[in-house]
């Protein structure tokens, strides 16, 4: 809680100087031609919408109509997708170097026309000209330059993998950075050889349509990029179109969830960049003046309408009063007004609708007991303006501390210790970004690693570059934009090469006879346990003999397993990669000692011949060794960003991951899923083959005998149909890897919106091949984090 500090006796008195005013510095708009009416851009032609409907696009700073824009209906969307599909045939086949040249040309022309585009963007969006001029437009060009450079070297983007384009990509972008978001989406998609149907937000269509002109003029073939303007309905038609192979969406978490649900079971590739409630943590040893400026950049940039806006301020209590005072002083110097004025910091809110949302939250903030501060100056009356706003005395339970407002509203709280700061920072269902301020490098790195967010700015805020990945953890969505990972979203990538099998003929198979009756158990929290429910099911051999009574896992077993995994995961992730490798190697060693037993058991269960069973066990052992070797090798990049910052993107474990195994191959598939996931520091809850669970039983005993920490691997036996929906709904589970039937897959994809968990549905045809072993399996259970650190003194 931050107490309001009274102005101290030395508080500067406002003097009555009048000479030192900036006056107006209006940007010239005479060079800009906005058409009275904009059509749809389909197949390289400007076409009228089938239903003949148009809507107004207005200038938010004065409400005046700028132009009429076509509203695309289902038929128009259909035409656009067909055009993209047709264009894909050639576009995906031409040499990458040709695509590179075209992307380069787009970048060049954007820069040549940057003043014109900046004005159009400011008129349509309401954001200040200084931002469109210095950030939106140059950064849009930068993305085209960057991905032009990948177009001719796609094979080198992901070593060891073979890539191919995905096909027709539907892209839906928001209104906060219209041209920039279009560039973020179109550039990597085109570089990788995809074709695009893009829908801009209904309030900001114009700059994207001008981009379409540029794309056409530089000679990108017809149909490679199609623009369908319109409202949510248009977007829905696009998302659900059967001809679309991938959807890339940036916008609210609410709509992201709708899209996830609509596309469940469709097999469409999905990347979602959603909302945020990003924290700014200011420690007492922070560079305070720069931190104040970081707040301004973090929450007041683009009127706070930024998905990664630093909307929660966490202040160490020792500096809180001083900091709040400096911040208020700084807020008085923010200039709000005509966005076309070059001396203006904050322009208009994009729409009346959004302005009302912001006003509603601010009223709620006051009602819930937080204390509001706004600089004492008047907001322009025409248009949709809102003053920069600071709330102090905010509690974590307040709505303004939890929900994304998407406006210039900052909620400030205090903390005492570093641990509390991390706790508060992570106390959100979002995970898009965080800003950390301290001059203590060790503390900076520790906090950067502990905060669950896709981007961490060390002593900075809201920095972006095409070479640095951007994207969310948790409900902030999945997929990355920028950098090589941004390209990953637009390719099908397969692990190359063959999986070697060592010769096991040297191993002699003994026979197991008259063994003592075994009681199978599940593995939860490092203990071998029965099902909480006491239920069991019979496991039969291929010839119908009873082999064991298997525990039938229930809701509560999943609950316990997730609890155990949550407890174990942080320490497991923090242990060294070397140690994790040792434990994996040791597990393989112990498993090997059960070789004959496993082979015979697999053969008895499935009826396969001994050599096939032997091969499966052999491959499983190899697979464990394979991932043990990856633990200390799979890592990230140092990004050559345009800023002077030191910038890295590296993978972090996702957290707790659910793994649903197919019926066969019962051992190999289970091993294929568990070991890459734990090699990279996750804790897992695995559901083995329902019909053939005895190999899992051996693995349970082996894991129990190994040095695997309790809770890192949990195995719950039972019915996939019952257990996977429970995992899919569980909000503490970050990812779910599913192999099994399509109906169930659809269901868990729908249920996954409970926390926007990452879902992989896959049924490799050949579990022995590189389809089921490779680098991509390491990647699957990792989340990429980009860390910016200032690097000058």
């Amino acid at each position, binding site marked *: 809680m931050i107490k309001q500090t009274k102005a*101290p*006796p*030395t508080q*500067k*008195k406002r*003097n009555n*100087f009048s*000479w*030192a*005013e*900036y*006056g*107006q*510095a209006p940007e010239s708009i005479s060079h800009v031609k906005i058409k009275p009416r904009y059509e749809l851009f389909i197949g390289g032609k400007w076409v009228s919408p089938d239903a003949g409907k148009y809507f107004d696009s207005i200038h938010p700073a004065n409400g005046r109509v700028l132009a009429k824009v076509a509203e695309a209906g289902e038929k128009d969307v259909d035409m656009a997708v067909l055009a993209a599909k047709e264009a894909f045939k050639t576009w995906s086949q031409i040499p990458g170097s040709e695509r590179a040249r075209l992307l380069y040309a787009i970048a060049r022309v954007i820069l040549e026309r940057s003043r014109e585009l900046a004005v159009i963007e400011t008129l349509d969006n309401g954001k200040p000209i*200084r931002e469109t001029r*210095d950030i939106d437009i140059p950064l849009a060009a930068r993305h085209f330059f960057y991905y032009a450079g990948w177009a001719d070297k796609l094979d080198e983007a992901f070593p060891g993998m073979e890539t191919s384009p995905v096909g027709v990509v539907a892209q839906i972008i928001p209104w906060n950075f219209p041209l920039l978001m279009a560039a973020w989406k179109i550039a990597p998609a085109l570089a990788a050889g995809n074709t695009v149907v893009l829908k801009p937000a209904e309030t900001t269509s114009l700059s994207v349509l001008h981009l379409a002109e540029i794309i056409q003029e530089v000679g990108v073939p017809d149909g490679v990029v199609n623009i369908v303007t319109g409202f949510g309905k248009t977007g829905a038609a696009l998302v659900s179109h059967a001809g679309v192979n991938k959807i890339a969406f940036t916008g609210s978490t609410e709509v992201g969830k709708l899209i996830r649900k609509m596309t469940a079971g469709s097999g469409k590739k999905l990347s979602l960049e959603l909302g945020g409630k990003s924290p700014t943590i200011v420690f007492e*040893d*922070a*560079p*305070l*003046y*720069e*931190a104040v*400026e*970081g707040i301004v*950049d973090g929450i007041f940039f683009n009127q706070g309408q930024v998905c990664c806006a630093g909307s929660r301020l966490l202040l160490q209590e020792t500096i809180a009063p*001083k900091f709040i*005072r400096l911040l208020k002083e700084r807020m008085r*110097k923010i200039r709000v007004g005509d966005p076309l004025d*070059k*001396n*203006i*910091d904050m322009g208009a809110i994009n729409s009346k609708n959004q302005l009302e949302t912001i006003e509603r939250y601010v009223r709620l903030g006051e009602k819930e007991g937080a204390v509001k501060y706004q600089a004492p100056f008047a907001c322009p009356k025409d248009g949709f303006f809102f003053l920069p706003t600071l709330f102090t005395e905010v509690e974590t339970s307040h709505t303004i501390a939890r929900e994304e407002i998407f406006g210039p509203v900052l909620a400030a709280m205090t903390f005492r210790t570093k641990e509390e700061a991390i706790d508060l920072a992570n106390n959100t269902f979002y995970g898009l970004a965080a800003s950390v301020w301290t*001059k203590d490098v060790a503390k900076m790195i520790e906090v950067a690693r502990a905060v669950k967010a896709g981007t961490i700015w060390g*002593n*900075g805020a809201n920095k972006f570059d095409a070479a640095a990945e951007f994207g969310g953890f948790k409900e902030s969505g999945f997929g990355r934009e920028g950098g090589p990972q941004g390209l990953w979203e637009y390719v099908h990538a397969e692990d190359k090469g063959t999986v070697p099998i060592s010769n096991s003929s040297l191993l002699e198979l003994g026979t197991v006879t008259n063994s003592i009756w075994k009681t199978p158990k599940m593995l939860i929290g490092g203990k071998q346990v029965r099902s909480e429910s006491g239920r069991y099911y019979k496991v039969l051999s291929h010839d119908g003999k009873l082999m064991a009574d298997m525990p039938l896992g229930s809701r509560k077993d999943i609950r316990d397993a997730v609890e155990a995994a949550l407890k174990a995961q942080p320490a497991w992730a923090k242990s060294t990669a070397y140690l994790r490798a040792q434990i994996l190697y040791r597990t393989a060693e112990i498993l090997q000692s059960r070789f004959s037993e496993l082979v015979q058991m697999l053969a008895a269960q499935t009826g396969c011949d001994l050599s096939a069973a032997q091969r499966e066990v052999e491959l499983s052992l190899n697979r464990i060794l394979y991932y043990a070797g990856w633990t200390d090798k799979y890592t990230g990049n140092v990004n050559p960003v345009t*800023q*002077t*910052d030191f910038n890295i993107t590296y993978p972090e474990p996702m957290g707790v991951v659910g793994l649903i195994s197919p019926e066969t191959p019962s051992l190999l598939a289970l091993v294929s899923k568990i070991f890459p996931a734990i090699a990279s520091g996750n804790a897992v809850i695995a559901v083995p083959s329902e019909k053939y669970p005895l190999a899992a039983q051996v693995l349970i005993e082996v894991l129990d005998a190994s040095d695997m920490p309790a809770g890192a691997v949990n195995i719950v036996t039972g019915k996939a149909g019952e257990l996977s929906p429970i995992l899919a709904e569980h909000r503490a589970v970050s990812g779910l890897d599913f192999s099994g039937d399509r109906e169930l897959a659809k269901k868990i994809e729908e249920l996954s919106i409970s926390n926007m968990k990452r879902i992989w549905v896959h049924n490799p045809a050949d579990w022995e091949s590189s389809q089921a072993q490779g680098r991509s399996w390491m990647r699957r259970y990792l989340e990429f984090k980009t860390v910016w650190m*200032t*690097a*000058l*003194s």
Partner: protein
Amino acid sequence: MSTLKNNAPENFTKTRRNPVHRLDLDVLRRLQVDATGVYDRVSKITKTRNPKKERQETWLLHAVSMIDLTTLEGIDTPHRVRRLCQKALRPLVDCPEIQVAAVCVYGNFVSEAKRALEGSSVKVAAVSTAFPHGQVPLPLKIQETKALVASGADEIDMVVNRGAFLRGDYSRVYDEIAMIREACGEAHLKVILETGELGEIQNVWTASEIAMQAGADFIKTSTGKIGVSATLPVSLVMLNAIEDFYLRTGYRIGHKPAGGIRQAKESLHWLSLVKETVGDDWLTPDLFRFGASSLLDDIARQIHHLRTGQYESYDYIPKG
């Protein structure tokens, strides 16, 4: 046409003079600066705080009133100093009401400058303490300062002992400044940090804080005698230091960027920087100065352009 309204005298009387404070090393340890943030902030200000047309003219006229018109050359002559003083009294031919804040000269020329400026409010500032290097024993620095004050200097521009500062001997740096301050008597003291020799930007704040604790009336960036002189990032750090000091103690310390400021546009950037940090209260010759020589003529050209729409040549501007 814009005119210059000078609020300085009124403001001046409101300002209590900064005394010598006790050296507080704890404060020094708490001050943190991040260079990248400093550069970003400067870049933002220079791109988004640009007065145009009439506003610009007004700003430029005020900038002229804040100049310490400087000549610090081995080849300076009494005549040259007299010429400079005449220019100080009438820096813009078309604006007789405007004067610069001070002339800044070597100690040899204090009396000459004093005579030339007699009866005007233009101050005489003299560089002291073995400017620009400061590499002489302290008693000589004190002696020099006293002599300059005795010969009529209104303001003393001293240099910080960089050797002591860089080897971490902060109390030595502090002691020297405090003693020179004492030697100044009524004359105002500007402490030159020579930021181009201080290394990391963090040191700029540390040195600023020491100087202010030791009783500086102004903190000044540079001697103008080395490769790197006044820069906006360095000034930003010094202005933040000034604000921080003001918020803690209630004393307003002045700031003087010096060396390398040659263009009218740069002077506008500096005024914006002051306005955006310490604020309008500092936009007075009592608290802000430009140490410059050729800046004045570029401002004259710029004002001519603003008033007539024609570009001006140096041939039409009297030499200082």
